[in-house]
C-alpha cells in the first residue's frame, strides 16, 4: 500500500514538472544511466538499435532542454502548454536488477497557439529505489497515436 502510494506520488510529480516546464528537475528524476524511450513500433522490446520517436539518455535530454530554453528556438515562441493526467497505476514485478516496474496510463492535452492536440497511452517506469525516493532507469512511453501521422511534431517529452 505504501509502495503504491509512493510510486503514484512520484508519477504525479513527474507530470507536474513537465506541465510547469521545470525541465532540469524533470531530467533529475532519471538515474545517471536512465533512458526515456518512446518506441516507433509497439512490438519493439529494446530501445537500442531500432527507430524510435524518442530514445534519449541524460545527455540527449540536456540537448533538448537547452534547445527549448534558447531564445532563438523559434518553435517555442508561440504560447504553448500541456496538461497531463496519470492514472491506472499498477505495480508489477521487479526487474532482474531489482527495479520496481510500474505501469500506468496517461492523457496529455497540448495547446499551441489556438490548436489543441490530445495524446494518450501508457507508461512503463523502471524505478530504482534511492534514499528518500526513486530514480527512473527506464521510462517507456507507448502512445496510442504513436503511429498516426503527426500534425506538426512533439517538442518535448510526453
Amino acid at each position: 500500500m505504501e509502495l503504491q502510494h509512493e510510486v503514484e506520488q512520484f508519477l504525479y510529480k513527474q507530470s507536474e514538472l513537465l506541465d510547469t516546464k521545470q525541465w532540469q528537475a524533470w531530467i533529475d528524476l532519471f538515474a545517471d544511466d536512465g533512458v526515456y524511450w518512446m518506441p516507433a513500433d509497439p512490438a519493439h522490446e529494446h530501445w537500442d538499435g531500432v527507430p524510435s520517436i524518442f530514445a534519449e539518455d541524460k545527455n540527449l535530454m540536456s540537448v533538448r532542454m537547452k534547445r527549448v530554453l534558447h531564445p532563438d528556438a523559434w518553435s517555442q515562441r508561440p504560447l504553448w502548454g500541456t496538461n497531463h493526467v496519470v492514472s491506472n497505476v499498477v505495480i508489477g514485478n521487479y526487474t532482474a536488477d531489482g527495479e520496481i516496474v510500474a505501469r500506468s496510463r496517461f492523457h496529455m492535452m497540448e495547446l499551441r497557439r489556438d490548436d489543441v492536440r490530445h495524446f494518450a497511452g501508457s507508461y512503463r517506469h523502471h524505478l530504482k529505489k534511492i534514499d528518500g525516493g526513486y530514480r527512473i532507469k527506464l521510462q517507456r512511453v507507448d502512445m496510442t497515436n504513436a503511429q498516426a501521422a503527426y500534425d506538426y511534431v512533439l517538442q518535448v517529452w510526453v
Partner: protein
Amino acid sequence: MQQKRATDLSASLSDLVQPDRVRREVYTDPGIFELEMQRIHERVWIYCGHDSQVPKSGDYYTLQIGRQPMVMVRGADGAVNVLYNRCPHRGNMMVGDRHGNSGEFFRCSYHAWTFHHDGRLRNIPMMESGYAGTPYGRDNPDCSMRRAARVENYRGFVFASLAKDGPTLKEFLGESRVAFDDMCDRAPQGAVEVVPNCFRVIQRSNWKIFLENQLDALHPSVTHQSTGRAAHEVEKDIEKKTGHAPLSYHMLSAFATVTIDKWDNFQTLNYPHGHCVLTGYMGLRPKDPDTLAYEKTLVDAYGQKRMEEILGVNIHHVLIYPGLSVQSPLQQLRAVRPLGVDRTLTEIWHFRLKGAPEAIYRRSLAYYNLVNSPATLVNADDLENFWKCHQGLSSDGGDWVSFARHFGRDIQKNDVTETAPNCGTSEAPMRNQMKAWARYMAGR
C-alpha cells in the same frame, strides 16, 4: 472570390514566374494547386517506395500520387505493381490499411470481386449468371483494377508515372540518379534494404516551401541555431568527461559551428527537371574504429581505389523534383505527398547498407531519430518557419517571393547550372525548381 482569382491566374501562368522571383499565389491559390496536381504530380515520375518494403507476394503499401490513392504490391511473379486503389465495380477502395499482405489476390470488401496483383480481374461472384451476354468479364479492361501508366525501378527504388508518355525514369532522373548510386554504392553488397518504419509528419504549408528549404544553405545556421548551440555545449561536456562524443552530436552541433559565412563554401548543382544537389558534408568520414572497419568491408568488396571513390562522393542533399529529398550518405529520404494547397505530408524512411557493420547502421539511425522522427530536434523549427511562410504568403502584404540571392552569378555548363565559387547560399536551387515548375505548368 478565391475561385475567380484561380481562373484568372491559370490563364496567365507565365506571368507568375520570373527568373529571380515568383508570385505568392503560386503557393496559396487552390486553383493553382489543382493544376499542379494534374500537370506535375500526376504526370511525372513519383517515388512510390523501395522494393524491400514489399518482400513477399501479396505485400502492399498504399501511397498518394497527386490526388490519386495508389497501392504498390508485389505479385506472385515477383514484379512490383502500382495500381489505383479502387475496385472497378463500385469504386470501393481495394485496401483500407496503410500496408499489409493481401494473400493470393485482392478481394473487394464490398461485393467480393477478386483481382490478381497486376490488377487483372480474377473473378466476380456468380459471374456467369450475373453478366452472361454483357461486355463485363475478364477480357474487358474496364473490369480490372487500373494500373499506373508506367512503373520503373532504379536500384530498388520504385517510381510510377500516371502519364503514358514522357521521359523514361532514367532520363527523368538524369544526374540526380547519384542519390541512389551514392546510397547503394556505400553498401559492400551494392544494395540497401528498408528499415521497416515510416515516420509521417504533416506540414501546414505548401509542398514547394519544403522542397525549397532542402537546399537552402543559408537557413541552417539561422533556423537551427538553438539546436546547434545546445548540442555543441553538451558535446563539449561529454568530450571533457570521456574524451570522445558520439558523431550524432557533431551532426547537430554543425548547425552552430558552421557559421553563416561558411555555408557559402558549399556548392549546388542544378539539373533539368528541377533536380538539384547540395555538396559538402559535415564530417561523415572520421577516423574512428567503426569507420575504419567499415572501410575495410568496402575494400574487400571493391578494392582500395573504388572504396576511395565511393566515400569521396561529396553530397549533403539530393532533391528529386517534385517529390523526394534524399540524404544518401545517411541513407534516408523524405517523400513529399501534397494533401492540399496548405497541407503536406512527408513520409520519412531509413535504409540499411547491405553488408556494412552494425555500427554504421546505428550511426545513421541516430540521425534518423534525432532529425527525422516526429520528436525531431531539428525540423521542429523548419516546420514553424514553413507555417509562418505560408501564413505570410496568404496575406496582401506583398505580391512576390524573392529568389535573387547570387542571381546572375551562376555558371552554366550545358544543361547544368552550377553556383559560382563561394556562392553556396545562392538561391539557384529555388530558381531551378521554379523553372521546371513553369515548364510543367505550361504543359511542356
